[in-house]
């Protein structure tokens, strides 16, 4: 979209030779662009046109209109009467291969990802299920590779979710369930590689809900999952300065918030269970302060837990309030950037 992360360089006046060279490049590009436009207007959907489109897109993968031209050419070729499934599959396969180097060089280009999805949807539309499934299946390996290169790539994660959900739609329920489990392992692996990777943590939150749903898990099983997750995040929080971990922690704490609980992994805990969990959590988090007294996230989490207790039982006791005030004074001191947020909170607290 724009030049993200490009270091500045000194712009110097171009020599006549450099100007000449630039001009030549412009003319070359413009004439290629013109050729493609003319052929597409004339509906000349030949192999040669496709080649020129490939050239143009390799020079400029952001040229969305030319991606649309490519779709038109491909659609035309797919619709030739005597084409067999394996011939169509070959066309699709060639095109997927063409995209690979572009994706590697421009992993944040929306249009390439979109085009790839379109192509795979065409496979689904035109080919027998077992053949199209193979295409979709291969995408998991590709996207894993892309996410190894950049583990926060937004497009990569979105693409992964799409591939998985499509495979689940076209597979049997058993296949779908085992894929969820497989993805859960994948997210775990990505978290293991880098605890700060919130994209992977986020994926985990969604997969847990899906897993439990697929297993039609009982409340007891859901509670067990919750306990495992609490244990996991407690271990990870050995580094309490990492924001990603605290957002995952916050996500888990939603289980105990009566208004958010219905959207979480354990929606049916009783009032006393919620309070017990929260009280235990407060004890646990307070211990983290030892050696990390300057970590604002700890105080924030403590405040959130205490507020949740008040929500669950319907009132805030004097003792709990004074604890919150104590933690709040630390946060105000440690978090000057968000000073007004804490002052606003202090006012709200007075009304609780």
């Amino acid at each position, binding site marked *: *979209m*724009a*030049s*993200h*992360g*490009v*270091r*500045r*360089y*000194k*712009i110097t006046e171009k020599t006549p030779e450099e*100007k000449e060279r*630039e*001009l030549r*490049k*412009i003319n070359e*590009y*413009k004439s290629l662009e013109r050729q493609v*436009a003319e052929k597409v207007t004339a509906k000349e959907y030949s192999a040669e046109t496709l080649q020129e489109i490939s050239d143009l897109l390799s*020079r*400029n993968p*952001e*040229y*969305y*209109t030319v991606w*649309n031209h490519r*779709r038109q050419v491909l659609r035309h070729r797919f619709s030739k009467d005597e084409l067999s499934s394996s011939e169509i599959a070959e066309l699709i396969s060639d095109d997927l291969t063409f995209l690979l180097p572009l994706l590697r060089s421009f992993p944040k280009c*929306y249009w390439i990802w*979109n085009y790839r999805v*379109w192509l795979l*949807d065409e496979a689904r539309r035109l080919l027998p299920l077992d053949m199209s499934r193979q295409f979709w299946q291969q995408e998991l390996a590709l996207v894993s590779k892309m996410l190894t290169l950049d583990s*926060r790539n*937004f497009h990569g*994660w*979105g693409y992964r*979710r799409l591939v998985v959900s499509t495979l689940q739609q076209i597979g049997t329920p058993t296949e779908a369930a085992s894929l969820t489990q497989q993805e859960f392992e994948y997210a775990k692996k990505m978290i293991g590689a880098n605890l*700060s*990777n*919130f*994209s992977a943590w*986020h*994926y985990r*939150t969604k997969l847990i809900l899906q897993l439990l749903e697929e297993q039609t898990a009982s409340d007891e099983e859901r509670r067990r999952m919750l306990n495992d997750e609490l244990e996991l995040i407690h271990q990870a929080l050995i580094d309490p300065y*990492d*924001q*990603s971990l605290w*957002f995952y922690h*916050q*996500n888990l704490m*939603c289980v105990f918030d009566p208004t*958010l609980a219905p*959207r*979480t992994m354990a929606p049916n805990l009783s009032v006393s269970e919620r309070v017990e969990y929260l009280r235990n959590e407060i004890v646990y988090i307070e211990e983290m302060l030892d050696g990390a007294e300057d970590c604002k996230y700890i105080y924030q989490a403590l405040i959130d837990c205490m507020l949740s207790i008040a929500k669950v039982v319907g009132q805030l006791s004097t003792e709990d309030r004074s604890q919150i005030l104590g933690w709040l004074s630390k946060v105000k001191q440690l978090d*000057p*950037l*968000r*000073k*007004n*947020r804490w002052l*606003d909170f202090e006012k709200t607290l007075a009304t609780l």
Partner: protein
Amino acid sequence: MALVSGPGRAAGTLSDQELHIAKHVAYIQNLDTRKDELEYWLTEHLRLNGVYWGLTALHLLGHPEALPRDQTIDFVLSCQNDNGGFGAAPGHDAHMLYTVSAVQILITVDAIDELDRRGLGGKQKVGSFIASLQNKEDGSFMGDQWGETDTRFLYGALNALSLLNLLDFVDIPKAVSYVQSCENLDGAYGVTPGAESHSGQVFTCVGALAIAGRMDLINQDRLGAWLSERQTDKGGFNGRPEKLPDACYAWWVGSSLAMINRLHWIDGKKLASFVLQCQDPEAGGFADRPGNMVDVYHTLFGIAGLSLLGYEGLQEIDPIYCMPKSVVERCLSQR
């Protein structure tokens, strides 16, 4: 008429905290004179967005006349396709992103009637193009006929249709529930249901709910907390947890905070300081980070961020529409 591509040198330092208005105006005006650079031609697919970015920045900088109005209107109209939608430049396919820019530009230069006078099928046809991209089942919007779905397009649709006074062309309750389905437990929003929260998508989702009059659906304290945590120690905002700050998030995060009345939850002085360090004090323009190449996209969103903060010498921006507040007020009051 054309704009977009980059080269210039962002180079602010902490000691340089002045907004170089004249330089930025000149930078934007000169974007269209760079036809001898390959980059100019390689960015043609952004041209109409570029005009919107440049024009809006000029309005905020107090130089609305710095681009020739007639040529601007002619260029916009030359980008219209037979289906009523607009492409990035003449000959480029129609897409939501450029159609929204076209409407925003015409409203900004007070020339929306030109659509009825000289456009293909008038305002109605533009509205129909946008409406044709709504998924009737779930309320989401596609970018074009090829099917990409993203909350950016939903916001764009509501933005443009409300400016055209044609919101009744689409199913607003369904669009609203789609936005809700993109909400995560952290109170923020993603690009589609299930996607990780992202500041850019927060802007689009909150903006869409603001236009639809459904701000009551937002968990404002929770979202405000997530948004305010986007401010990093150096003052700049990042787009997601544990990512680097970028000047454009001064807008995406800042406007979202403003829409939920919590812009005061962050340190505005430090944010402004970061944004100012992203400008090129010599050749004008803003970059994503201090020391990087400038471009017109970051130039608008850097300036828009400063405008939100009430920076002296800038016109006020509307946090919902990303257009000058006076323009939006004029447009909406003509109903």
